[in-house]
Structures are given as C-alpha cells and as structure tokens.
C-alpha cells in the first residue's frame, strides 16, 4: 500500500472541503482498503467520515430514510425497514458476508468498484484503471460480464445488489457538496461506460452521499430479490432481479423491476413493467413480459447464457413477489 495522509473528519463541512481538495472518502473501507492494498487505488489523502452523524434510520408513512453511514447489517436488521421495505433487508442479506455487512456502509455500497478481474490485475489492460489502455475482458474471460449497456471500452457489471433494489424502488439520494445540497434519483448516480469507463458516477468533486430515501409505494411490501450465483451465499450475482408488485383483483396495477449482473449499471426494466400493467398476476403474464427484457442485449464470447438466464430470473422473482401475503 502506498503511503497516504490520514484525516479524521469531525464535521461534514470539514470532510467535504478535504474531498473537494482531492481526498478520498473512507467509510467502511471494505472496498477502498482492499483496492489501496492492491495499488489499484492510490489516493494521496484519505478522509475518514465515520464520526459524522450520518448513521441513522428514520421511518415515516411516506418513506424510509437511511443515513449513508448506516451499516448493511444494521439496515437489514431494522424492524421498520423489515416491515415497510422488506426488499431491502432481503437484498442486503444476499450480499457480501456477515463480517463485511457489519462494516460496509450503505453509501459506500453504491460506490463500490467493479469486480472484473482485469480491473485488479495491474499488468492487464483496463480502460477503467488506466484510460486508453484497452479492455482485456472483451476478448478474454468474460463469463461474468454485462450484456446490457456495454461499450467497446468496458463490459464490467455493477456489483451492488442494493443498487438494483434501490433503482427498482425509485429511491433518491441526498448529496452534500461544496456548492450545497441536491437530490437525485439513485438511477442517475451511475454512468454508462461509453468511451470513458473510468468515470463511474455523476458525483461532483467533493460531493458526499448523505442519505438515501426510499418511498413506501403500494408495491413495496410485495417485493422480492432473487440472486442467481455460482454458490448459495457470499458470491456476486450472475443474474439477479428485484421485483415489486401492486396487485388488485388479481391484476397487476403497478410493477417495479430491475436486474443486476447483466448491466454496466443497475438495470431498470421499464419495458417489462409496461408489459405487465393490467395483466393477470400469473406465470403466463410474467413469462410474456420477461421476454421483453432481452431486447438490446449484446452478449460477449463467454456470457451468452445470461440472455436466457435474465428472463428466467425475472419470471421467478415476479412469482416470488406475487406469492408474498
């Protein structure tokens, strides 16, 4: 690990000023410390934000509001979250390991870096690590890579499970930066790789994710997360799906669906949602709607199986959501 200057922030303004001057925010550290040790990340200065008062969970009739420093395990165990937004605890508990969930923050989870093996291999070409150096995955080992939102420069999937469910639930982020506060939809946090895969998010220099707001929609309680992977726990998704349904008189009145493991960012399935509206809440409707999910997919040499796995995963997630009492 390269030497770095360490600062422990005691106020938000102090932290934001340090980050605006180039320091990296440090929360749980489960991604950053690992990447710094591998020298994939080499910040000259790190600002520890763990003492800031951003670890809270508040429930109202309209929404669940989660401070960005709440830990994955704390959010997953919170009774209000479990009651009002059961998709969130299920999604969180399907990610990482118990040890990591005790430490990893909710804000950091959204900003975790990709798990493409070439990103961590310092002697391999990677446009995300060294812009312009090329992509080793597109002509190499890419069974875990994306089939949606790729470019000729990068095909790494976004690794967060939580981001998939937050995108499905229309969650928003409160950001605090040198120029004040603003709110954005979670889905707008993530960039497509296009020609600049090293630019992953839309945060301005020094901007800090302060809190996450998840609206309590009528579909929020009939919601499930299904994660398909190579082993039954503690593994990244091959394909995952978050599905939330509002069913009245046996018909789908509203649907919220997003997929993970398939896109270069968490992928909202708007066309599948539209195809479900007004249809009976049944496997036949789910299959017909999920077939739309593969439109625009561009498989690489090793990940064609995801084109079949994606609709199958969505169908099963919809069935699970529909079965919630």
């Amino acid at each position: 690990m390269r030497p770095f200057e360490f600062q422990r922030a005691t106020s938000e303004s102090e932290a934001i000023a340090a980050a605006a001057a180039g320091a990296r925010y440090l929360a749980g550290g489960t991604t950053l410390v690992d990447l710094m040790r591998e020298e994939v990340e080499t910040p000259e200065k790190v600002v520890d934000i763990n003492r800031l008062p951003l670890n809270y969970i508040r429930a109202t009739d309209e929404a669940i509001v989660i401070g960005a420093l709440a830990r994955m395990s704390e959010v997953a165990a919170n009774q209000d979250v479990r009651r009002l937004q059961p998709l969130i605890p299920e999604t969180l508990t399907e990610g990482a390991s118990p040890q990591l969930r005790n430490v990893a923050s909710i804000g950091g989870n959204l900003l975790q870096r990709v798990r493409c093996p070439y990103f961590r291999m310092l002697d391999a070409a990677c446009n995300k690590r060294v812009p312009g150096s090329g992509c080793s995955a597109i002509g190499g080992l890419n069974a875990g890579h994306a089939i949606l939102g790729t470019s000729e420069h990068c095909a790494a999937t976004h690794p967060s499970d939580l981001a998939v469910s937050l995108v499905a639930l229309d969650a928003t982020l409160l950001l605090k930066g040198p120029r004040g506060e603003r709110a954005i939809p979670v889905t707008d946090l993530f960039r497509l790789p296009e020609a600049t895969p090293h630019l992953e998010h839309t945060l301005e220099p020094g901007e800090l994710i302060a809190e996450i707001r998840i609206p309590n929609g009528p579909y929020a309680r009939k919601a499930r997360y299904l994660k398909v992977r190579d082993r039954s726990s503690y593994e990244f998704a091959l394909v995952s799906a978050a599905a939330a349904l509002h069913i009245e008189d046996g018909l789908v009145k509203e649907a919220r669906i997003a997929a993970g493991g398939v896109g270069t960012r968490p992928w909202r399935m708007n066309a599948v949602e539209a195809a479900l509206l007004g249809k009976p809440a049944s496997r036949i409707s789910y299959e017909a709607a999920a077939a739309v999910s593969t439109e625009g997919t561009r498989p690489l040499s090793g990940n064609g199986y995801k084109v079949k796995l994606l609709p199958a995963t969505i169908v099963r997630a919809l069935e699970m959501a529909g079965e919630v009492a």
Partner: protein
Amino acid sequence: MADALSEISLTRRTVLQVSGGAAALAVLPEVVGSAYAQAPTEGARDAVEVSFTVNGTATDLRVDPRLSVLDMLRERLSLTGTKKGCNQGACGACTVLIDGKRVNACLALAVMYDGATITTIEGVADGETLHPLQAAFIEHDAFQCGYCTSGQIMSGLGCIREGHASSAEEISYWMSGNICRCGAYPGIVAAVAQAAKEDRT
C-alpha cells in the same frame, strides 16, 4: 545469523519464507523489505496516535495509517492467534470482534477504529477454561489443519450473538464468510449449533 534475525524481529511468515533452503538467504534483504511494507511500524511518516482495549487490556500505539488491525494485532501486539489468510476480506481467517461485532481485521485500518474494544481468540477462554464454543470445536472435530479455526470461532461467536444459529441451514448461511479449505464444515456447523443451544439454556 540467529542474532541478526531476531534483531529485525522477523515474522513467522517471513521465517517460513526464508527457511526454504540456503538459496533463500540471498533474497533475505528483499524479504525483510516486503515484511516492513506489509506491516508499517512506529516512526513512519504521518503516524497517528490510537488507543484500543484489546482482550481487556488498554493499549496506546502510534501507527502508520496503512496498518491494518490484523497486522497491528500480530506484529505490534504479538497476538498471533488471529490469522492472515487472503488479506483481502474473502476468507474470514482474520475475523475478530470489534465493539462486539465480527469483522475482517485485514480490511480494518487501525486508525479507523481508535477507541474501539477488540476481542481476539486469545481473549475468548476464561483462564484455563475453554469457552463453550472452543470446547465444542474440539468435541466435534471442527478442524483439520486449524489455520481457519480462530476465525471460525470468532465468527461463530458473532453468529450466535446475532441470533443466526437456530438451524444447520441458518448457520451455514451466516458462517459463509469463513472458508475452510480442509472442508471441516459439518463439524463447524455442529459446534456452533451446540454452543448456541448451550447459550440459550
């Protein structure tokens, strides 16, 4: 040679690396250099004052910001029961309790946890009396080589405390952050289940 080795306080890991034969002596300076790079020590640039309570004992240290809790325990406090496996948060061998919660000590920078209370495998037994989970590991043959065992036990303590040890399936899921290359999982699950049961009664 023995004096020179002790002067530079080689780690067991380094000793293992250099004890492979006479040829290894030629690379000794390089090996020593890498040991220091992994475990930055006192007097480094930008050192930070931190204090911990480790297994009940108050400890003040000056640390390089790069120092992990794992390296602090092993290299600075000589608590080598906590093991370094992958050093990237994937295997769980380094699991300790920080403020009562199980964490991977390899991904925890010491400077982030100033003021924390840390419990390692050395702090689990009551004098010469093993903790019920330690005794259960022996009773159920929950290890072969033993390298992952201290991490398994610390993680098992967390698993029980969190209330995720009510069935074999639940224990398997909630112990998945601890890898055992010998494959002693059935014994590990049985040991955690037994200790959880004793904990409730």
